């Protein structure tokens, strides 16, 4: 029977249809033997082919057939991995241990084949798992993910600035400018400066304000009163607002200091 090299399938089923004897054209044999992923794969194939019970392997049959294949591999000068030879040694060792008289009570672990069986079963499980994974649809192949187009509008976010960045910049300014170097800038002063802006903003929109209107009576009233008062004094000192009072104890008015 002539075997076309194209007939050789990777999965075990196709291989099991191969002739029992090894009359395979040499070039096909090479391809055939190369399809085994290693000694465990070859052993699994032999177990299947000979209908051996994995839990009660006839070591003589398995070892003989295995050696036959390995010899063939050697004969066609297939680069034989050390793994195959190592397995030969293991099989022969198991076979000889099987020939020794059995102790009275045979525990599972005492069976010389136990380790081999465990490895064969684990390998077969992973071999089947590999086939399953191979057949699953995957993204990039049989599984296509929605990927329509959209206009990539430049949604550019301005840089983030943290309080630390700001403080670092301020320290830099102070270091260079040696300005106002006679006091540290306290929280209170910051509050005052903030309120200066608040008062200015308000005067800007309302024109003239009654002094008393500039003080809200909400939460933290007293604290704010002081800060606000200081802010107004500072604004006045810097010439930014004009404070007017027609007569003593009459209403005090604040307005932006317009030059005219």
């Amino acid at each position, binding site marked *: 029977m002539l075997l076309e090299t194209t007939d050789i399938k990777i999965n075990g089923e196709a291989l099991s249809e191969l002739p029992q004897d090894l009359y395979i054209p040499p070039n096909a044999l090479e391809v055939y033997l190369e399809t085994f992923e290693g000694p465990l794969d070859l052993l699994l194939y032999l177990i299947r082919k000979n209908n051996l019970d994995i839990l009660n392997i006839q070591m003589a049959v398995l070892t003989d057939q295995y050696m036959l294949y390995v010899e063939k591999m050697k004969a066609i000068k297939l680069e034989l991995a050390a793994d195959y030879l190592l397995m030969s040694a293991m099989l022969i060792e198991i076979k000889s241990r099987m020939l020794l008289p059995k102790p009275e009570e045979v525990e599972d672990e005492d069976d010389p084949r136990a380790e081999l069986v465990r490895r064969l079963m684990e390998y077969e499980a992973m071999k089947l798992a590999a086939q399953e994974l191979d057949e699953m649809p995957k993204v990039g192949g049989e599984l*296509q993910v929605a990927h329509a*187009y959209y206009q990539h*509008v430049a949604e*550019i976010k301005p840089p983030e600035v943290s*309080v630390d960045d700001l*403080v670092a910049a301020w320290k830099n*300014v*102070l270091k260079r*400018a040696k300005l106002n170097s006679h006091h540290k800038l306290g929280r209170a002063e910051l509050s005052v400066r903030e309120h200066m802006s608040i008062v200015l903003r308000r005067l800007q929109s309302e024109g003239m304000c009654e002094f008393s209107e500039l003080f809200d009576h909400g939460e933290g009233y007293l604290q704010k009163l002081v800060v606000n008062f200081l802010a107004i004094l500072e604004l006045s000192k810097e010439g930014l607002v004009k404070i007017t009072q027609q007569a003593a104890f009459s209403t005090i008015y604040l307005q932006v200091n317009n*030059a005219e």
Partner: protein
Amino acid sequence: MKELDKIAEMKQVLEAALLTAGQPLSLEDMLKLFSSRVERATLRMLLDELKQDWEDKTMELVQVATGYRFQAKAHLSSYIARMNPERQPKYSRAVMETLAIIAYRQPVTRGDIEDIRGVAANPNILRQLIERDWIDVVGQREVPGRPSLYATTKHFLDDLNLRSLSELPQVEDFSQTGMPLDA
């Protein structure tokens, strides 16, 4: 009836192919979808129908140089762009120092800023900060030229997660001889 089924199925295949392509599909590409022979005219008709099917939906089927593609309607694109915003590089030192001066010394004029920094101010810097709504003009100083007075805004406080300026860290003066204002 059979023909109609086939047409409906072809439209489905076309729609799915166009939605998943990731690039425009040419008529040649689309002809490969079908094992049977399909006329270009048929394909064009199907594309036309698809276009109409999607008229009031989230995508539109458009023809570009290399073929056809589905694209998100314009008004939805800006939302999608939000997922991958590009962040601008950091602000320059000049911008940061200007901002710090306005924050710590407000209200200040451009002249004040120049005095403190010791260099002429680039008007572009103030414009950037105004556009970001971090500073604004709160008045004018009554000196010749009536220069604008700048202060930080509420929006600035929000963006830096501050309730008020007084939450800014106190900066120890390098001279450390200072007499604190709130003493």
